[in-house]
């Protein structure tokens, strides 16, 4: 848990550090930002040079996700309406797990 807090704190710092040099551009800035930070900001701004996945690639990732053995370990419902209907009929709450297949 503490480890997670440290990580979160580090991320906050990284965000602030990343934004700091850019936010003064356009104003009188006598301290030019360090090269490494400028590179990091540029990389973030461009979203990197990676191509977004195509629809067939996304479909493949989705299929692979559905093949996970863990899905068969419990009665997961993939249909939203059916899950709500089952909740209505049984009086049980819905326990929902939101995940993604397009990225790890």
């Amino acid at each position, binding site marked *: 848990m503490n480890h997670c807090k440290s990580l979160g704190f580090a991320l906050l710092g990284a965000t602030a550090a990343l*934004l700091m040099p850019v*936010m003064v551009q356009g104003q009188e800035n006598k301290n030019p930002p360090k090269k490494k930070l400028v590179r990091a900001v540029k990389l973030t701004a461009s979203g990197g040079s990676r191509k977004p996945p195509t629809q067939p690639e996304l479909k493949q990732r989705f299929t692979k996700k559905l093949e996970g053995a863990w899905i068969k370990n*419990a009665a997961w419902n993939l249909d*939203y309406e059916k899950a709500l209907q089952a909740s209505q009929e049984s009086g049980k709450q819905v*326990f929902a797990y939101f995940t993604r297949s397009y990225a790890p």
Partner: protein
Amino acid sequence: MENGLFSSADFTEWSKNYVLYLHISTRLEGREHEGLFRAKGFTGFPTLAFLDAEGGLCAKHAGSRVIPEIQTTADKARAYMVLRSKAASGDKVAVQHLFVADLELARYDFALGSLKLAGLRKEMPQSLQKKADQLMIDIQYNELRRRLSKELSAGLDRKEYTRRYQGLNLDFYRSGLFPSGRTALSILMGVMGYAFQNKDEALLAQALEKFKAQASNQPGFAPRVSRYESMLAQLRGDK
């Protein structure tokens, strides 16, 4: 979690008391309910939540992903549903607590939340008012932040985005309205960075004091404070 908790026999047993729903965001075009994650107001994967039979959010799990902690969230969801029925039957205290619970679940946007709070405030005990006020600040900040992110996605120039983002943080800082949790620290670090770059010694000193007061229980606090202290010393020395 998938290869751990969700693959365990304990989970199989525990899950029999619930209807399980698995939502996978795929980015596939034209897929039904693809936008459900965003529609529920969630922001990070993975998210575990308890929903009612209408799909309304009753509790979002924020603790460790182990059965006892998830059960605690399930109990909160159950308590929320009880509160809702009490409020529906006309219990005035339940109405006030339900409103705050709904703010916590981000079921209201800032405009509607403000309106409802104005109607309920007079009868609310001070402690509940204070909680509602803090939640309203959180909602307001998140809305403005999200609006800005949307503009960035829609093609806003990144420099302009950064300028507006800094402006937003400075506005919240100057108004004394601090969102809860780490967002407040993020704002303070942004303000200190801005102050340093603009050689605003007074602003840096003031924000640093607030940062010390708010972040003292955070791991990694001491080195960060000494970094900002040396930035302040540098400004003072530059004079």
